């Protein structure tokens, strides 16, 4: 018996009024695969993420997570079924410390639900789990810093830390390295590789270096449609992709 795909997108479409942002996207992502989505600005990458994670309601089509239909479910239920996402703009709890931020993400897997009968500070497992994640994301020495005072790159790391805190099977990262310097990006790639080990990863990224290092397969999204899907080598050699996506721009060296 073969496992169902970790994420199975079938004929997904989304329109806002007359504007079609996503058109008939079909994509299967195998368990453990690292899949990147690239495409020019405005291609609908973030919209696709919002559809998968439940923030938007699809106009047509469906999404299945490990064989179970999740389209139409509210975001918190999708999250509880094992899909977690990060945001392009840092979306953290600014009035809390770094540690508290991650701890909020951890609560769910601890089976702590909406509980009001247990003291969170006395929960040793939650502590250990929180610090394991902080450590993995290189934030443990900043554990007690208020999140709003973190430098930008660390906020991005925290964004990822919150995303993986709930032990999801499928992780969606929306431009995790956007706005980072080269050295910060290198560190972030390292972090992402470590943090998502053994998980299914769907990542939107502009930095080709990041993608070709990280991804097993790549999909190219242009005007809300998938133009091509394949291994990095296949995408690199695809003439259509070069023309449509890269146009006359100077080719990044990885592609050239």
């Amino acid at each position, binding site marked *: 018996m073969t496992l169902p795909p970790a994420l199975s997108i079938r004929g997904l479409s989304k329109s806002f009024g007359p504007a079609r942002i996503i058109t008939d996207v079909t994509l299967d992502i195998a368990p453990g695969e690292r899949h990147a989505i690239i495409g020019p600005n405005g291609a609908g990458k973030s919209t696709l993420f919002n559809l998968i*994670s*439940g*923030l938007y309601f699809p106009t047509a089509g469906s999404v299945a997570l490990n064989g179970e239909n999740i389209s139409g479910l*509210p*975001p*918190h239920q999708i*999250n*509880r079924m094992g899909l*977690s*996402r990060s*945001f392009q703009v840092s*979306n*953290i*709890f*600014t*009035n*809390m410390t770094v*540690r*508290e931020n991650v*701890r*909020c*993400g951890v*609560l*769910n897997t601890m089976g*702590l*639900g*909406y*509980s*009001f*009968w*247990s*003291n*969170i*500070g006395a929960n040793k497992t939650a*502590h*250990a*789990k*929180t*610090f*394991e994640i902080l*450590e*993995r994301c290189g934030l*443990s020495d900043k*554990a*007690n810093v208020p999140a709003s005072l973190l430098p930008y790159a660390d906020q991005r790391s925290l964004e990822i830390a*919150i*995303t993986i*805190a*709930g032990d999801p099977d499928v992780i969606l990262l929306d431009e995790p390295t956007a706005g980072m310097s080269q050295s910060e990006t290198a560190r972030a790639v390292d972090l992402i590789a470590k943090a998502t080990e053994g998980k299914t990863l769907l990542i939107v990224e502009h930095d080709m270096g990041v993608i070709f290092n990280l991804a097993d397969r790549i999909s190219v999204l242009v005007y809300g449609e998938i133009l091509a899907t394949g291994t990095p080598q296949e995408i690199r050699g695809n003439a259509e992709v070069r023309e449509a996506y890269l146009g006359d721009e100077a080719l990044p060296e990885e592609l050239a």
Partner: protein
Amino acid sequence: MSTQDTFDYSAHVPSNAEKFRQRTLPLLIFAAILVAIPLTGPSRTMYTLMHQMGINIVLAMSYNMLLGRAGLLSFGHAVYFGFGGYFAMHVMNWIADGSGIWGGFPVFLLPVLGFGAGALAGAVIGWPSCRRAGTTFAMISLGVAELVASGAFMFDGFFGGEQGISGDRMNGPQMFGLTLGPISQVYWFIAFWTIVGVAGMYAFTRTPLGKLSEATRDNPQRVQFIGYNPQRVRYMVFIFAGGFAGLAGAMSAVNYEIFTPDAFSLGPSGFILIMAYVGGITYFVGPIFGAILLTYMQSMMSDFTDAWLLYLGVLFISIVMFAPRGLAGIVFGFGAGLRGPRPRAFLITWLTHLAGIALMLIGLIVLVEIAVRWSNGYGEAFAPFGLPLAQSNPLSWLLVLLSALAGGALTRRAARMREAQA
């Protein structure tokens, strides 16, 4: 999870000693003060005042579970106080009748039932109202409160009509040997439940739900993506806030032995909001400050002046405009300033500011008091410290103008000094 064994996180979390110093100790000191107060032999007036303070502390803190901790601005919190109180009043009468199981129920434990009634009211009313947050929630809370307040005058069977429901607390089994007859015995009842309420609400902030409540306040969208439904978080917090308000209601029922439908109206709801906000909603202890100060003002100032509500309004607006962190913010800011790098300069600025505010206050008081006496038309003149300040006396207007101007100049100077120091 190899890191779990090797990484020592104890350096990054508060040690047990720190936890004791920062969390348990303040509560113990608070309890010790409450226990010590009767040793000073307070007068009957003092007792009455302190009882109202205890009730208002629990009430204002329960309100802050919504406004400060969950970001929910409610204009109808008195509703839950009212339901808790009314239910307690009814049970008090059932205890007096000795009918059924109620004959054996101690009056001392009524706040437990008040909590239940308040929480139930929160569960029923919160269900339609907690679907929306922000300003919409505020409007809804006002409408629902009006509905309940009008309904309270309609269903006399439960609410007792205009004259309300009264009872007698000296029935049923005693606890801790308290008959609850003399006012000094009621003190222990109030003190006990004030501490239980404060400790309970503090404990709530330490639970996962308490933390999620803060997370939902800061970023409801992200809460969805860590697997929680923000509406459900708000709803559950709302139930608890209603419960603690109901607890305060039952404290009030035992203390006054009467409850009237007026308890539900918008006035009390507004007063709760003002207490919590003036005290400082970003601090857990803020509402305690607000409850103590405003209860004192309410009982003392209404004897001295007709315009106490006007002063209350001015105080509230000033806090909203100039000190949004409330009294607690001012107190803790003062402490932090003195421990800062330049305590002397800080103190001078602070005192300048204080003097400016005091002068403006004098101007305001003279103006308001003259106006109030003119409005009453009894021909009585405002004469503080034997100084007659009639409205026809140019000295009065000079005083108003001069102190306002001088006060304004001083506060501006203080603001400039603060800028120079920053």
